[in-house]
């Protein structure tokens, strides 16, 4: 059967004096399908445009201006001045960047180690496993603001139950979130409490998909438990571990709600938990410095992208 190739844009020629042009030929299925595809995509594209592209472009635009007070008030383009100001700010910006990194690295390492340990323990079915899994999910389902308030009450230096318990076992009272030096470590531990279960569940899912033969072979060869874990299980779990690490690290970098719920605006009295997110919020809502805040957010976004690229490269190298 012969087929005639028809250009999608070709139209039948009309020769003067030879009567009316022939009726338009129906489009091919591929043509119709192509048009339909774009039609179906349109709402999603519109949504992405309105909700993601526009805010990003607007933030970038704002970061190049001296916008202050009201975003719709008159503003002047100041080039990269806001970026220079932010990067030259050793009182707030750099300490906030450092805290962001300390919080993320500390919390994610602890969550990964604990999550992996729990996942290994839960790898083999045991009695009451369903209950354990249900309990594990509870912190994940609770909103961070509720968690913040809950821990604030538990850790209250004067009336909280934590100090009563410490006193009960003869340990000295602690200030926890009331202290300038203890606040960040305390918040990291709260983050670990909330997010270790997610790491456990992700890594457990990865562990259950691993083939049993390599480990079995290592056992026959006389490898002990640690050797099997170190040289067989861990390399095979690499891709899952890398994905879990990237997901959690990005989320930890962006932490805001629990910091705000426990320490309020400004990140505590000595800025002790002021991360880049908290700093940008303060610049926007407390200081109304929209231009500078936008520049900080752009730098923060670049920082997150940098961390993700770094983690993916390292993850990729390990799993290669």
């Amino acid at each position, binding site marked *: 059967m012969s087929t005639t190739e028809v250009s999608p844009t070709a139209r039948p020629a009309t020769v003067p004096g030879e009567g009316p042009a022939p009726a338009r030929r*129906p*489009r091919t*299925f591929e043509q*119709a399908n192509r*048009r*339909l595809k774009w*039609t*179906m995509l*349109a*709402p999603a594209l*519109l949504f992405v445009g*309105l909700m993601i592209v526009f805010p990003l472009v607007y933030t970038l635009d704002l970061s190049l201006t001296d916008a*202050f*007070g*009201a*975003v*719709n*008030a*008159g503003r002047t383009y100041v080039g990269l001045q806001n970026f220079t100001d932010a990067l030259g700010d050793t*009182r707030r910006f750099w300490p906030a960047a450092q805290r962001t990194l300390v919080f993320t690295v500390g919390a994610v390492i602890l969550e990964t180690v604990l999550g992996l340990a729990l996942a290994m323990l839960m790898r083999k079915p045991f009695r009451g496993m369903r209950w354990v899994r249900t309990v594990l999910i509870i912190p994940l389902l609770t909103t961070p603001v509720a968690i913040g308030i809950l821990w604030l009450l538990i850790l*209250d*230096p*004067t*009336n909280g139950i934590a100090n009563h318990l410490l006193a009960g076992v003869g340990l000295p*009272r602690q*200030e*926890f*979130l*009331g*202290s*300038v030096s203890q*606040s960040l470590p305390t918040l990291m531990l709260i983050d670990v409490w909330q997010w270790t279960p997610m790491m456990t569940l992700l890594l457990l899912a990865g562990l259950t998909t691993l083939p049993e033969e390599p480990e079995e072979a290592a056992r026959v060869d006389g490898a002990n438990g640690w050797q099997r874990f170190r040289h067989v299980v861990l390399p095979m779990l690499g891709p899952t571990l890398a994905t879990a690490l990237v997901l959690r690290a990005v989320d930890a970098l962006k932490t805001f709600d629990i910091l705000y719920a426990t*320490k*309020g*605006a*400004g990140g*505590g*009295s*000595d800025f002790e938990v002021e991360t880049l997110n908290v700093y940008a919020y*303060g610049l*926007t*809502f*407390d*200081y*109304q410095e929209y231009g500078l805040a936008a520049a900080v957010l752009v730098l923060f976004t670049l920082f997150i992208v940098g961390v993700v690229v770094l983690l993916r490269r390292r993850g990729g190298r390990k799993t290669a």
Partner: protein
Amino acid sequence: MSTSSQLLSRRSFGRLAAGVAGAAGMGALGACTTRGGRPSADTPLRIMAINHVWSQAIRRRTKEFEERIGRRVSMTLLTADQLASSYNVKLNASGTDVDVMMVRALQEQLLFAHNGWLADLSDRVTQDEDFAWPDFQKAPREASLTAGKVLSVPVVTERPALYYRKDLVEGVGGPPRTLEALMSAAQELTEKKKGFYGFVGRGQRSGAVSQWSSFLYSHGGDFVVGGRSGIGSPEALAAYAYYGRLLSRTGPPGATNMSLEQAMPIFAQGKAAFYIDADAIYSSFLDPKVSTVRETVGFAPFPAGPAGARPHNIPSWSLGISEFSLLRDDAWEFVKWAAGPEVTADLQKDGIPGARGSVWSDPESLASFPPDLAEAMRLNAERGLGYDRPRVLQVGRARDIVGRPLVAGILGNDVRPVARDADAEFADFLVRDNRHKES
């Protein structure tokens, strides 16, 4: 089924989808369009307010007002931070869904005026004789003015009160009249090992500034002196050192994380001998549901420092009308009613301190306050200054700078180097703030 009919149905579906998406997009954009339009009779008058005893009392009476104007009233009560953030978001978008705004004249008014968010009420307050604008106390009335325009009407006033435990001060010579006496009494009564503290007060960097202002003035200092930073002056250093010493030696643990919400319960639960905070919250200590000290709490005026007793006397909350409101006349009717002589007197009889001079001179309206509190309020109002924070455009930033040496003091550190650094930062800030004002 033929291809053409399939195509037709796909095309129709495609058009429908595009139409729906377009309509949704236009709808979303339409929702953002805020200017113009005529509100219908069903549109409620929207009031945004702080969750405060004043707004709760007003909310209980809104039926009366709704009947008066024939329009429904929708009142949203939020915390101070939430309220500030909501204004930021809504007014930055020129939203018409706020009519009456409860604002802090000393915190937000200058900035809102700079942004053009508050309607000018000058003609309305002065032309309506029944409203009796001159009846408002001088300091709150002056705080309502920005660039010669009345932008808000004060409804709640505040001074610092010294709350103390009557059962404990007997042994230390009664309620302290000076800051020096307060320090020694607080030290004498502190028993940290037993979880009892001589003094409790705000210690948060920004939150403590407004209460600390009375300590600053009473030491002879001020935030700005002759247009320049005053927080590096010897008087300010003495006030920083005093407050830091008071809280670090006699205060509870975690004081640097304490604002009103954290400090007040410690006194209410009988764990502190002295507490200095706004007089408007006195009822919290008389409420059996939250207080264990209702039988033993006493009230005294702010103690005198080296420069005498110079507390603040401020309009803590005022009512303004959004520049973008489409119901300005009804909004004004609300302000007129809620800040009017009748409602102010009624609320003051319920123990909510108002801003009208007439109600303060009416013994009946003061009868609801405990006698020692009424006397403390009267004395503090007489001696008070009309502001409790730097009078600048970016009050939040100013408070963050001014509060840093305070925290250093509470942590038991030397305040001098921190105050020197904060003084330099505040001086730079004042230059920038002036530049913003002129822009």
